[in-house]
């Protein structure tokens, strides 16, 4: 997550965004992306309901099992979700964002619950946190529904997701209690790749080398992550070898560089 106040920016972009989309054939991709985001948001709400129910019934094992797959939906739509900075903080902030870290009574959301489940192996005291999480996720769903999607935010989201991975995921700091970071990775990558796929037809002819390079780096990520699949998801992050961590980091950094030009390549400010 990012702690920047993006809400104001989102409003601004929403106001100027829509004409640009028309002139640039982005209407199709943007509305398809909106569909994707709303699907993922629905799944997020659904899964959060089950996750919160498990927490509230004191079922530690079930809550642990649902934690990572539930978050994955959030990670997939993070460029949109984090436009609402108040909710992003409430849903996905980490202990470092609080002066007293884990002990801080204000530490909320997924990671506060993760901390209780893994560090204390308990759901004690988590009910209010879990209920608030569900309320926030539902709030997010409503806000996303009424949000006009500015094309520059959609297109820029592909790079934003890479920045997210580069800044907080590659170090294993995101899910530091559960070590389920690879699920988040997968969510961030899929979210980014979705955007790239949607706009690819608009640049494929004009810049085939760029497309090839981006595809190649996504492929590196896919094959590297595939080595760590287990059941429906992934092994814990500490199982990642140093060599594979470096491989992922290089692919992420290269994608972050390349995708940072995507908006410009599509003529968006």
């Amino acid at each position, binding site marked *: 997550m990012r702690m920047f106040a993006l809400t104001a920016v989102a409003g601004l972009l929403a106001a100027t965004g829509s004409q640009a989309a028309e002139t640039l054939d982005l209407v199709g991709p943007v509305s398809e992306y909106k569909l994707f985001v709303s699907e993922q948001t629905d799944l997020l709400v659904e899964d959060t309901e089950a996750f919160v129910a498990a927490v509230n019934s004191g079922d530690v094992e079930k809550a642990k099992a649902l934690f990572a797959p539930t978050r994955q939906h959030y990670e997939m739509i993070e460029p949109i979700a984090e436009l609402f900075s108040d909710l992003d903080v409430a849903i996905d902030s980490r202990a470092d964002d609080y002066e007293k870290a884990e002990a801080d009574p204000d530490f909320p959301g997924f990671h506060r619950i993760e901390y209780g489940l893994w560090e204390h192996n308990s759901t004690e005291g988590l009910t209010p946190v879990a209920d608030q999480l569900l309320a926030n996720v539902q709030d997010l769903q409503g806000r996303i529904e009424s949000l006009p999607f500015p094309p520059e935010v959609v297109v820029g989201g592909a790079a934003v997701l890479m920045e997210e991975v580069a800044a907080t995921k590659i170090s294993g700091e995101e899910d530091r209690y559960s070590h389920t970071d690879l699920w988040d990775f997968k969510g961030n990558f899929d979210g980014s790749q979705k955007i790239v796929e949607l706009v690819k037809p608009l640049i494929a002819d004009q810049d085939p080398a760029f497309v090839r390079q981006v595809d190649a*780096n996504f492929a590196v990520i896919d094959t590297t992550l595939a080595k760590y699949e287990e059941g429906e998801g992934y092994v814990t992050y500490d199982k990642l070898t140093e*060599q594979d961590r*470096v*491989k992922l*980091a*290089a*692919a992420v*950094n*290269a994608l*972050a*560089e390349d995708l*940072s*030009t995507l*908006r*410009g*390549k599509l*003529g*968006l*400010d």
Partner: protein
Amino acid sequence: MTNDHLRTSRRGLFLGAAALATAPRLVFASTEAETRHAADAPIEDAARLSDRIQPYGPHQAGITTPRPANGMIASFHVLADNPADLERLFRRLTDRIIVLTKGGPVPELDPKLPPSDSGILGPVLTPDALTVTVGLGASLFEDRPWLQPAKPRALVRMAQFRNDALIADLCHGDLVIQLCANTQDTVIHALRDIVKSIPDQLVLKWAQAGNVPVISPPPGAPPESARNLLGFRDGSANPDSADASLMDTVVWVGPANDEPDWATGGSYMAVRIIRNNVERWDRTPLLEQERIFGRTKITGAPLDHPHGTEAMAPDFAADPHGKVTPLDSHIRMANPRTPASKANLILRRPFNYVNGVLKNGQLDQGLLFICWQADIEKGFITVQRRLDGEPLEEYIKPVGGGYFFALPGFAEGGDDFLGRTLIAALSPTSQDSSQSGLSTSQAQN
């Protein structure tokens, strides 16, 4: 003090014209630069943003080049699965080195795109005496079967010494880049440029910046070594970096070193991040400080010539029991100055670092120790083993670093690039690359 003592000192020798022939050429406004040495203190007001150090030559710049005020070591993981990948990396590095050390206007892009340059030096890059020196770590070779046979003979992973408290995140690396420049901004700009330009092949592992104090000597005064954070002049007894033939023995890999052909003209680099317990040091009596080093604090003169200069060499033979210069003083342990210890000379070119505050509330300061030698076993490793147990250990704690092999230099123009000889040694078409191509039997000069 005999002439013989002076012979290995950087102060003792008149600088001949030949000495400059193989050293990376320094294009300074003032001619004074030509008599400066690797670890001399930079002179106030003498440095210019327009100072340009040519990156070309048989050896990389930044090794015997007079040290500017700022430096940094950045260590990377390398992504290269085959010789072609490695060549691509070397060529890209070479391109950046040429651009960055030359300066000039930054390319302007469509403002809808991220700018090509960080912009921290403005729209026109100034060379600012920048040098970019590239070294390879043992892991680069060892983790790649196709590269393993080309590993420089003496290149090993840095092992723990007695007083070390190594922090894994500050150690080793596949490839290291040393950046040096007059100003810190130029160093930072170069690092940012390289990180941005080569994201798919270089992943940053650790970095440590440092600097040395700039001095303002009276006119005509001899050069002074820069002071470290313990307040002592550091570099006094360095071998003369302007003496090309001495550097051929001490610093540069040549026919005598039993190294692969491709390594000729390269050099071993030892990097150590050494914390200084400065609070405790500042509470230590002056005489004790001086006994710990074996030199005086103000002038750097050896203790047996207390009113002399730092250029003077101590005569340990005349003081066999260490009455004047303690047997366990730093300089005496580091270099006992016996005929045999001549084989262990190293060229030190360190920087001081200041990193903020430690958990215990003390200052996190120390020495970014960097030294160069033609054989790391005979050089750094032997000297450090001798220093194990020295009284200075009470005040210092090595926490990071690594050993690297600095590639030979590259020529201007043509199709030359940094690391070309290594790539050629890997190519199946190059003569006998698997055997004698990698031995010293056909040393290049």
